[in-house]
């Protein structure tokens, strides 16, 4: 019985942390946010070299064949370093879709390219977790029509699109009839946007039960976002504690004021159990099928709430500095804000958690 990380998992975290801080950390993120490029190819390349892009892809398809818990640990580091890199869709949800619902040919075609980072895949299923503005996609005669908003890892070469009937389809980014509209959000590190599909030829994933594959994608995606928030929130807390120790007001470090200490203690008290929740939810995705969806909902919703609290409180501990761009704290703040809404806001996810237990009316 062991509920904790293996040596290999700790090494994976460390390697990723070294790479992401080595690649420029906050400065790389700033440059990305300020620039016009919507991809950071060298970051993706580095992740591919570390095996992150192929983390959950079986070795026969050129991946590393690790677990979804390992993927959550990677997501945590990406959040910690506010990395401008695609991950939840291209490295987790899309491979899962292919593994669970693709046929041998589809798997052989796409999984090696995803593993190597040669192809980046976005996932368009926000309408399944909650359709806004009447968006949604319909399949007719092998072609897709409609609109898909807030594509995860939108800057991609390939999309996996879910239609209203919960079927899954592969769509090339340059497919005729596909129009892309870029969005700008508060989170400059993860570009998103909308696909308009006007009779786009699409290749279905041919699983018997694509709804189950879709469910697995959503569960895993939610755990990845929760893990991303965990990393970002922990980093904000660490920053806040360090800042409070160094900042002198009224002749003493503000870390010696009980009010500041208690703000930090409240953040730590709320956040520390979240780490175990994310581990458990990540583990459940692979190993506890009857709990996986429920724990994914709880991880997503609870981390959203705790993340929001930490984001605000850590900013307050920084005083005016936290509000400026100078310390860049807002990149984490916004990343946590982004994770909160994507793939279902906390209230929607909690409603789903209730339904999963047969508690809904």
């Amino acid at each position, binding site marked *: 019985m062991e509920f904790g990380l293996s040596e290999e998992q700790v090494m994976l975290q460390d390697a990723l942390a070294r790479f992401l801080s080595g690649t420029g950390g906050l400065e790389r993120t700033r440059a990305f946010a300020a620039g016009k490029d919507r991809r950071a190819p060298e970051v993706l390349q580095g992740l591919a070299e570390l095996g992150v892009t192929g983390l959950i892809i079986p070795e026969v398809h050129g991946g590393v064949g690790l677990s979804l818990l390992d993927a959550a640990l990677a997501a945590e580091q990406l959040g910690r370093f506010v990395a401008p890199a695609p991950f939840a869709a291209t490295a987790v949800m899309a491979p899962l879709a292919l593994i669970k619902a693709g046929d041998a040919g589809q798997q052989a075609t796409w999984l090696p390219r995803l593993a190597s980072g040669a192809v980046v895949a976005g996932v368009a299923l*926000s309408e399944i977790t*909650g*359709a*806004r*503005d*009447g968006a949604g996609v319909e399949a007719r005669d092998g072609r897709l029509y409609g609109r898909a*908003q*807030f594509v995860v890892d939108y800057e991609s070469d390939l999309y996996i699109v879910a239609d209203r009937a919960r079927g899954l389809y592969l769509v090339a980014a340059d497919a005729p009839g596909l129009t892309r*509209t*870029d*969005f*700008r*959000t*508060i*989170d400059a590190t993860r570009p*998103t946007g*909308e696909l308009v599909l006007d009779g786009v030829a699409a290749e279905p994933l041919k699983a018997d039960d694509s709804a189950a594959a879709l469910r697995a994608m959503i569960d895993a995606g939610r755990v990845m976002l929760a893990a991303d928030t965990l990393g970002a929130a922990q980093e904000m807390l660490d920053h806040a504690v360090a800042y409070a120790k160094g900042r*002198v*007001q*009224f*002749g*003493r470090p*503000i870390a010696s*004021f009980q*009010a*500041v200490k208690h703000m930090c203690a409240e953040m730590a008290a709320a956040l520390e159990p979240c780490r175990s929740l994310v581990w458990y939810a990540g583990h459940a995705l692979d190993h506890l099928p009857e709990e996986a969806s429920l724990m994914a909902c709880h991880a997503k919703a609870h981390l959203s709430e705790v993340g*929001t609290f930490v984001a*605000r409180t850590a*900013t*307050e501990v920084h*005083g*005016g500095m*936290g*509000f*400026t*761009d*100078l310390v860049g*704290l*807002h990149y984490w*703040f*916004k990343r946590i*804000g*982004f994770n*909160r*809404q*994507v793939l279902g*806001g*906390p*209230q*929607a996810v909690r*409603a789903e958690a209730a339904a999963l237990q047969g508690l809904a009316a």
Partner: protein
Amino acid sequence: MDLSYSPEYEAFRAEVRGFLEANRSRAPGHGGNGLTWQKLLIESGYAARTIPREYGGFGGEPDILKSRIIAEEFARAQLSPGLGGQGISMLVPTLLEVGSEDQKRQFIGPTLRGEMLWCQGYSEPNAGSDLAALATKGVLEGDHWVINGQKIWTSTAHLADWIFCLVRTEPDAPKHEGISFLLFDMKTPGIEIRPLVDMTGAANFNEVFFTDVRVPAHQIVGRRGEGWKVANAILRHERGSLADPNVMQSRLNALIDLMKAETLDGNRVIDNPVYRDRLMTIQGRVQALRCNDLRLLSAAVNRQSAPLAGMVVKLQGTELRHELEGFAIDVLGELGLLYGDTPRLRGGGSWQRDYMYFLGLIIGGGTSQIQKNIIAERGLDMPREPKLAKA
């Protein structure tokens, strides 16, 4: 308890309404110019109302209710209530109270008319909550102060003609008694302004650096070492205005409209009972602050005292507003993430902007932690932070 206005005030309200109807076309945004509009407002007694004529004001008697009626009617008509800014709201009252006759004559008129824009030089990187720790130095050399140091959070520094500035001129005096209140031209050599981008993406503030900035000795308000006293009386005015519950009420109404307009899976968001409950919780709190505001107004009019009611406004108001805006983002879901020049943006991005901006206001103008100290110490008469033993 009487929430009605007497006939005199109802007449005054009618007068204001008449003015606004007659002059709508002269207002900025409706064809008019901001400076001439300001001049008209001063002449008509709707701006600079209680400032003496000899200094460029209207010269009316202070009347809180009339001021309130003016504010209400301009808001109702959605016309500009004239110029604001730290010169008019903070410097002018300061000068009226403690400025020399020359200073009053020189500065108040042009400031009121918008001909002279001011910025405020108080905070420094190491003097935030502990403002009295400020370190910008002013040394008297001959008939000039020579100023070196840095200010931060200086809004409108890049637009301002002049600055009113706290400077440490008596380095040997106790912390609070070594500060002077100086006025000087922002075109004086040695001033460098760097915009300070904040989390909303805007540069609402600046850093201002002073290198051997030479300021004529007479441009001091009050005496040497009295700057803390001069500034502190005025700081209090700033705090309440950060969280006007009537603005909050408009914002709440906009939120209700949003919830009626937006849908999730084809259902109106307002029809979601969980969101409705959260909305009603916020509405109840907004109502409490509105009633509190009414009490403060009444206390001011009737010269009664409600100190605690005043002390809680900034803390409660900024936190509630931040929460309200955050709730609107939840209402919008992913659409609430949109920000800047982007398709499908709602409300011009104001929900996200104000969510962040009000987090800034929770911090600025005395953080929530400082507000709680004030409420405990001045409102509840609890002990001040005890003095520490020497390390």
